[in-house]
Structure formats: structure tokens, C-alpha cells
């Protein structure tokens, strides 16, 4: 069964929705759009991180990178001190460029420096967090120009959701319909065979890391556009959420396998857990356990599938 994982995720999404509807019968129509919108940053970055994981690498620096880029966007475009009031479109361009370059740098560390990606990005996770705090100096950045805010709010059309959908479609096209996508899977599936087939592993990996940087920059822009506020904690912990979504979505951590559809469903599932729990009458005591409940659910999502998968493939490894 090709889409078994996707099927079970869909079932979980439906079950959670039904559960929430016990408490609020119009849960789905009321919240569907908001859940999708709230999942946007995770979704966009997950598209990049998924490709990185498909090549057999990992990127856990995206949370800090998003924070750094959001801070940078803030400093450039904010209309009051310490902002520079740069034209928002120019600021966006700069942030996208910087994001791509940092992603490319990560790729270089991994490809040419031969630093294991989990270590390279762990180092960046720590260091970029410091750079973000240092850039911000102390204090939230607010007062963004309306042109920028319009990307996240303010108009009737959810521009950010459209951008996210375009990113997902683009990634889907890349995976299914473009030579690059096939090669990304090929590199993750069998690196030595890919080399023999004339595929440059270095080029592919640089591409996916740079793309992840670019998408993280995009997510940072939409984040700022929606929340209109950058703080030193912006982006903290996002990398874990993204990686969780990608693996819950069925992407194999050893590379080569996984569908975007699964990741999309996983992002929806993990984003909606919070809202569903918010709609259930947890009471003042139970609400303190919310994070623990989320943790248990993620553990179940990660492992339950493994029980069934093991049965299916039998002992042959």
C-alpha cells in the first residue's frame, strides 16, 4: 500500500476533528482555515527540511535561523528605532538572500567540510540563536510597514496561505515532476549508485540546504507579517516541531523515502492538537498537562506506525 501512512494520518486528523466536535459542533468550519494558517511557518520549512532528510541529512538549525532572519527583517523594515525603515520589498529581498546564503553555507559545511549535518546544524542552532539575541540588542521589534503586514493579515484574502500552498505545490512538483526531485530521492536512496549514475551528490545537497534556507526566510517573513512582532524567543524550538512533522509524515530518517502529502497531513495534525486541546474543556488542572499530553501524542504517532511497519516487513531487514 503506497499511501498507508497518509491514510492513517488522515484517519487521525478526522478522529481529532470528531473529538473536538463533541465539544463544539462547528469546530471544523470555524477553525479549519485558522489551523492551516497557524501551521504555515512549520509547513513551509518542513518542505525544505523534508528534502534535506530525503537526501539522508538533517537540518536542526531552522528554528534559530528563522529567529535570526525575523530579527533581521525587523531591523531592516521596522518604521521606528532601531529599525532602518528600508522599503519592505527590499528588506524581504535581502532576508531571502541572506537565508539562502546561510543555507548554502550550511550545505558547504556538510558537503565540503564533511561535518555531519546533525552536528553542523546543532552548532548553528546554538550560534545563530546567539547572533539573533545580539542583533536585537534587547526588546521586541514592532511597527512593521503595512505592505509587509498585508502578507500575513489585514486583507480579505489569506495571502500567506496562498504563498504556503504555492510552496507546497512547488515542492510537490519538484518531487514528482522534476529531474532535480528524482535526483534528490536517488541520492538519499543509494548515494554510491547516484554517483555512478552521474549525479553530483554535492550539488544536490547544496541545493536542498540552500532551499531550506530560502524557505526558512520565507517562513520568517510570513511569521513577522502575521504576528507583527519579533522577540528574542521567536523561532525557539521550531526546529524540533518541523523535524517531528517530517518524520511523523512518514519520511524515513535514513533518507530516500517519504511523500510530501504525509508531511502536509502531519503538519495539520500537529498544529491542530493544540487547538483541539484548547477546545476541550480541560479544566484548570488538566491544562497544566497540555505539553505532556502533546508529547505523548507525538510519541505515539512516531512509534505506533513502527509497530505496524515491523509486522509488515517481517524480519527481513
Amino acid at each position, binding site marked *: 500500500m503506497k499511501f498507508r501512512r497518509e491514510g492513517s494520518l488522515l484517519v487521525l486528523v478526522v478522529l481529532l476533528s470528531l473529538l473536538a466536535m463533541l465539544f463544539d459542533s462547528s469546530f471544523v468550519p470555524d477553525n479549519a482555515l485558522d489551523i492551516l494558517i497557524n501551521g504555515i511557518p512549520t509547513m513551509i520549512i518542513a518542505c525544505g527540511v523534508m528534502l534535506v532528510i530525503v537526501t539522508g541529512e*538533517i537540518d536542526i538549525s531552522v528554528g534559530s535561523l528563522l529567529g535570526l532572519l525575523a530579527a533581521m527583517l525587523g531591523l531592516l523594515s521596522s518604521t521606528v528605532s532601531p529599525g532602518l525603515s528600508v522599503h519592505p520589498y527590499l528588506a524581504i529581498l535581502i532576508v531571502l538572500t541572506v537565508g539562502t546564503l546561510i543555507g548554502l553555507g550550511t550545505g558547504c*559545511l556538510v558537503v565540503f*567540510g*564533511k*561535518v*555531519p549535518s*546533525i*552536528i*553542523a546544524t*546543532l*552548532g*548553528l*542552532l*546554538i*550560534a*545563530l*540563536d*546567539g*547572533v*539573533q*539575541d*545580539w542583533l536585537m540588542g534587547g526588546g521586541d521589534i514592532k511597527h512593521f510597514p503595512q505592505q509587509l503586514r498585508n502578507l500575513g493579515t489585514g486583507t480579505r484574502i489569506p495571502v500567506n496561505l496562498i504563498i504556503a500552498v504555492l510552496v507546497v505545490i512547488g515542492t510537490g512538483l519538484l518531487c514528482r515532476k522534476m529531474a532535480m526531485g528524482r535526483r534528490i530521492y536517488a541520492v538519499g536512496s543509494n548515494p554510491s549508485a547516484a554517483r555512478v549514475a552521474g549525479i553530483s551528490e554535492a550539488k544536490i545537497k547544496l541545493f536542498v540546504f540552500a532551499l531550506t534556507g530560502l524557505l526558512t526566510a520565507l517562513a520568517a517573513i510570513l511569521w513577522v507579517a502575521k504576528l507583527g512582532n519579533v522577540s528574542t524567543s521567536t523561532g525557539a524550538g521550531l526546529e*524540533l516541531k518541523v*523535524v*517531528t512533522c517530517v*518524520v511523523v509524515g512518514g519520511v524515513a*530518517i*535514513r533518507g530516500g523515502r517519504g511523500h510530501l502529502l504525509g508531511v502536509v497531513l502531519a503538519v495539520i495534525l500537529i498544529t491542530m492538537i493544540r487547538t483541539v486541546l484548547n477546545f476541550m474543556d480541560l479544566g484548570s*488542572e488538566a491544562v*497544566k*498537562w*497540555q*505539553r*505532556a*499530553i*502533546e*508529547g*505523548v501524542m*507525538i*510519541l505515539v504517532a*512516531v*512509534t505506533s506506525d*513502527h*509497530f505496524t511497519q*515491523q509486522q509488515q516487513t517481517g524480519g527481513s*531487514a
Partner: protein
Amino acid sequence: MKKFAYEFVLLGLIGVVLASAAILDPLFLSQNVQLELSSEIWELGLLTLGMTLIIITAGIDLSVGSAMGLCSVSLGLCMHANLPAWLCGLVCLLTGLAAGAINGTLVAFIKVHPLLVTLATYGMYRGFAEGLQSATTNAPVDASDGIKSIVTGGFPVIPVLFTALAVWTAILLRRTAAGRGLYAIGHNEEAARFSGIPVARLKFLIYTYTGLLAALAAICYSARRSATAEAGMVLELDVISAVVVGGTSIYGGRGRLIGTLLGVLLIHETRQFVDWYWQRSELTLIVIGTLLILAVLGHRFLFSRNPQTQ
């Protein structure tokens, strides 16, 4: 001598940090200051002992810091209930054992990738720690006199315990069948299994051992600060950094405990000195992150084997 080349590099780096300290602020090197600052090294050190074993098997444990928080809260609950110190300690150790055993079971027997397991338990253990604390005492609990005496008593319990565990772990790695098995698992799990090495059991044991170490670290922490769900927050990053800086390969199969200990020392001294001298929390982050990347780059650059020379 050649065998320990990287360890000499680490020693050199520690030397550089200390030399910079000597030039910039000699007070940092005074015995009193070093002794006082060392109180933070033990928790880091304890956790790296287990993490080294895990990374040698090509695994990883992201949940150590969270497990430590959970253990600290369980200790706090017991102290809050005025239980005798030994019982508090026992409950704490059992909590750690259970946390480690959950990781171990899922990794070793259910065969879920350790990154996935501990990514999930990382959030889960911390969630339970916070939930437990806010649902019961709703505040950190001061260490009871019994627990406190671990640090205040005349005998240096923690350093001695740590040294003993470190020596034991080093012997385990280098001089026992289990240690040889761990390296074999790290290099090639399938071949290790085909050689009759009890792969699943060994893996289960090292994750459980790490859980136990998290409990010990929680006791150390709670004795000198207080029992709180905050214990061990983001410590996993330092733990993994120290092990990797110490020359253990994240791909498994390579690494020595002496390297890890030097890695702990390097990370500790660097962090303390940057904090001490520049007084900029964010600068410390930048320096530690960069150090981690440079150390691994340096290790690759200096010691990567060139297949053509074979």
C-alpha cells in the same frame, strides 16, 4: 602517542582558553574561582558518560535534559512530602531508570530510530516535569537537609562519584566484551548481531544507564540549587557538543571516554570564561556553537583517513 593525537589537540585548546584567561583576567584561574565554578561541571560530566556510549553505537539521546528535569521534580515531590533523604534519592533514581528504560525499549526492542524516540520523549518528559510541578507544589522545592548534605557535607561526594563512574565507564568501553560490542554495533549493527553480540540488550542497557545518570545529575543539581522542572533545560545541547568535540563520531564506532572528558572540560572552561569575562550571554552561545563546528571540522581536517594512502 599517535593514538591520542586528537586528545593532545583538545588539551592544547584547553590550554589556549586558560592562557587567554591568564592574560585577560588571572583571577579566573585562581583555585577558589575554578573550584566554585566546577560545581556545574558534574551534571554535564555525568550525562556525557552515558551519551558517549550511546553515540558510539551510532545512537543519540536528545531527552537527557528533559529526563533530568523530570527526575528533579520527582525528587522535589518526595522532599516536599518530607520523606527521608535516601527514599527521595531512590524515587529519583527510579524515575530516571524508567525514563531511560522507555527510551531503551523503543530504541532496542521496537527498533524505532533513536533520534525519533528521544525527540518525542524530549518534549514528553519536560511536559510531565512541568505538569507535575505545577499541579502539585507549583514552585521549586528547596533541597532537604539530607539531600543538601551531598554538597555541603565535608566529603566531596559528587566528584568522587563522578570519577568512579567515569573510570568504570572507561573500563567498560575499553576492556570488556560489552564495550567491544558497543563499538561493533556502532560500526555495523547487523554484523554485530551475526557475531552473537546481544545488540538489543546492550542498547537497552545504555539508554537505561543514561536515564540513571540523568537522575544522578538531577540529584546533584537539586542539592545545589533546588528541585525544579527547569533542571537540565537545554543541557542536552552541551552534552552532545562535549561528546562530539571530544572526538566521538556521530556515525558511531569511534570515540574514547578520555576525549569526552576533555571535551567536557573544554566546553566548560570556554563557556565559563566567556561568561566570566565578556558578560554577554549571547556571545557565549556564539562561541560554543562555533567551537563545536570548528572542532569537528578540525578533527576531519587532521584525522580523516585518506583512502588512497591505504
